[in-house]
């Protein structure tokens, strides 16, 4: 398929199908058939815990594979709308050929995570990006490696440790994981099995319901490292989890002069406050990396006030010139007063005001 795919994505073919791409045509035959669009079929959805599931996927030939620690943009279509969220790959790179998996923790009001956990059926086709992200192991893994994770942040490091196991890595690996309780922990059986290996130390800390006679208790603390006999300055460390955990680990490493050993990944799960009072919260212009206090004006006006120059036309919600992606947060339409709180949707910024914290791709 490699040569055919190359030929199909070539310039001569593109000039024959212009202004469309070959995938616009292949898609009509079958959605899995594509030169460049990554799609996958759901093989199985496995319940990990009461509120977490692993989704096993079989991608089409356009998928170029992943490096452990990377994530994919994962899109499901429900009632005509495609909803896209990032999920980290949780499986081993050396796992069964042709499949990989992501693992998801369902958020109380979350749309996609709830859908994956409760409703996603085998054989469904999902819309992916290629694997992306810099939170990956180096080509030559050093002899001392520490993986720290909290809650659903376990997924990318799980992919790392599984891959290390399957590729016969001999160096010392310590895995320090924080979960609320054993019932809330994903991959329990696999973690138990990993703990058997001579070069691997698996330490799980249950913050709400500690195991009887647990060696470590509570949230991350520098003593936890001491207890495990880890010297941060010569241990390459990966941390992924809630913002609080990441902040504490980063502070600890900075204090110990080991910041250069630390690799971080945030799972930015947005928060939405539909009842936010007028003109509260922060408006974030993500691309420009500017934050401004929400003034209550339209997002277009606030962007202009912040020195940005977004495109616009009618400034009355008619022409669609000003649309941008709202990454997350709730906005109110100034004419209809309708509130939309979906993550990752496009909005006309000339007729929307933020409700609480909002993040837009400007």
């Amino acid at each position, binding site marked *: 398929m490699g040569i055919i795919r190359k030929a199909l994505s070539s310039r001569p073919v593109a000039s*024959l199908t212009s202004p469309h791409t070959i995938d616009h045509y292949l898609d009509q035959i079958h959605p899995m058939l594509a030169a460049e669009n990554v799609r996958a079929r759901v093989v199985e959805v496995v319940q990990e815990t009461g509120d977490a599931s692993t989704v096993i996927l079989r991608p089409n030939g356009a998928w170029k594979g992943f490096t452990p620690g990377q994530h994919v943009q994962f899109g499901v*279509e429900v009632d005509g709308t495609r909803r896209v969220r990032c999920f980290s790959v949780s499986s081993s790179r050396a796992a069964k050929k042709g499949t990989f998996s992501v693992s998801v923790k369902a958020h109380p009001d979350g749309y996609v995570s709830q859908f994956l956990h409760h409703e996603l059926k085998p054989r469904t086709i999902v819309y992916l990006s290629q694997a992306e992200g810099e939170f990956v192991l180096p080509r030559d893994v050093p002899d001392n490696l520490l993986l720290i994770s909290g809650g659903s942040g376990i997924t990318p490091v799980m992919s790392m440790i599984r891959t290390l196991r399957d590729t016969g890595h001999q160096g010392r690996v310590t895995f320090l994981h924080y979960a609320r309780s054993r019932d809330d922990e994903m991959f329990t059986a696999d973690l138990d099995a990993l703990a058997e290996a001579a070069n691997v130390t698996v330490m799980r800390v249950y913050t709400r319901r500690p195991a009887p006679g647990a060696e470590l208790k509570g949230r991350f603390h520098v003593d936890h490292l001491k207890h495990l006999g880890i010297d941060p300055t010569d241990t390459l460390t990966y941390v992924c989890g809630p913002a609080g955990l990441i902040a504490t680990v980063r502070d600890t490493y900075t204090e110990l002069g080991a910041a250069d050993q630390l690799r971080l990944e945030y799972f930015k799960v947005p928060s939405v406050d539909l009842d936010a009072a*007028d003109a509260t919260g922060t408006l974030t212009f993500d691309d420009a990396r500017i934050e401004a206090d929400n003034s209550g004006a339209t997002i277009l006006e606030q962007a202009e006030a912040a020195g940005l120059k977004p495109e*616009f036309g009618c400034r009355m919600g*008619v022409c*669609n010139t000003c*649309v941008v992606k709202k990454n997350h947060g709730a906005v109110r339409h100034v004419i209809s*007063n309708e509130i939309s709180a979906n993550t990752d949707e496009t909005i006309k910024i000339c007729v929307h005001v933020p409700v609480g914290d909002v993040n837009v791709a400007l």
Partner: protein
Amino acid sequence: MAKTKNAPIKPHSASNHNAAPLSLVNTHSDKKATIGLEYMTYEQLEEFGEELNAVRQRVLDDLGQKDADYIRRVIKVQKASEVLGRIGIFMPFFPPAFIAGILFLGLAKILDNMEIGHNVMHGQYDWMNDPMVDASRYEWDNIAPSKDWKHGHNYIHHTYTNIHGMDRDIGYNMFRIDEDQPWYASHRFNLPLAFILMLVFEWGIMYHGVELDQYLQGKITKEDFQGRKKRALKKIRKQVFKDYVAWPLLGLALVPFVGWWAPVAILVANIVANVIRNVWSFIIIFCGHFPAEVQTFAEEDAQNETRGQWYLRQLLGSANISGHKPFHVLTGNLSYQVEHHLFPDIPARRYPEVAEDVKLLVEKYGLQYNTGRLSKQVASVIRQLAKLGHKPDDPYKIGNSPESKALRRAKREAAAARREEEARAPQLTS
């Protein structure tokens, strides 16, 4: 940044174009717009606006799988007919297949430009979050680059619909199609020029989007103009290469079996398919705004308009074409021009349903609803072009008459004086 609480945004305001390059807000006077006063009071206009807002919201709330399925079905038919067309025109040795091929290719281009391209580029399917039907990404099978078309169409034409001096689509700078347009000698050729434009309509749309006239009048910057020119040239290259070079070249493979003329036949088939689409889209678009009963407006009357007045201007400034369902699909549902202008961003397949609500409101307020069969609207457009091509008696209607020139000079001077005043008191304009 300090936390200042802005005054709440005025709801239902249509003319909050505070910083738009062309503005319907009169910064010197808050005199209300006069549009629609012959039909209703300001209160009624306000109510009318709210009723239409409610119709729009009702449809938006109901969008879902069936709308997604619909547009995908149309795309499927479009792609299938394009492929069938390409296969058909590769059989110049078998005329029935060859002719069917041309028709399929023409149909594919019509569907791509009208029901898919035009509507997708309005953002009607943005809510699907599917890159294939995303307004900012869609590029159509047409010489005109989508970016500049969207600016001229979605913004200028749909915002300032039928306002003289603002909507560049009144007669496309080429025809005199409305009494209130000044007459020039070239308008004597209204009809033959329209016929020629019909055959090469996609080139006309492209040229319109380059905005040479706006540049020469100093209304757009040099960079803007050059960007438009560059995009147009790039799109021309791609379209011409595809239809008139690459596909005919593939026809060389047929030469040993069919004869030297096979690539020429394929080239001609491509030209004919493009002309079919040109003729069709020209007819539909001219019938949307140029029949006699459609109204146009003066800028002064539209300044500071409310949303209700904006809606009314759309209603009075457009005309529908009645017909059967397949006809509507082929027009991209632009046969529901009135509904399209009221709600340019809701999926066009909803216009028939929305038309019922619109008609109720038209009845309630005693308004005018322009509609008619295709033959009637075409005849009306032809009559308009013919009639208004004649030199009018009134010297003020003749563009080059001394009277008109004096009038324009007076207007220019007034505008300059206003600008000067603005420069002196910039805080007034914000």
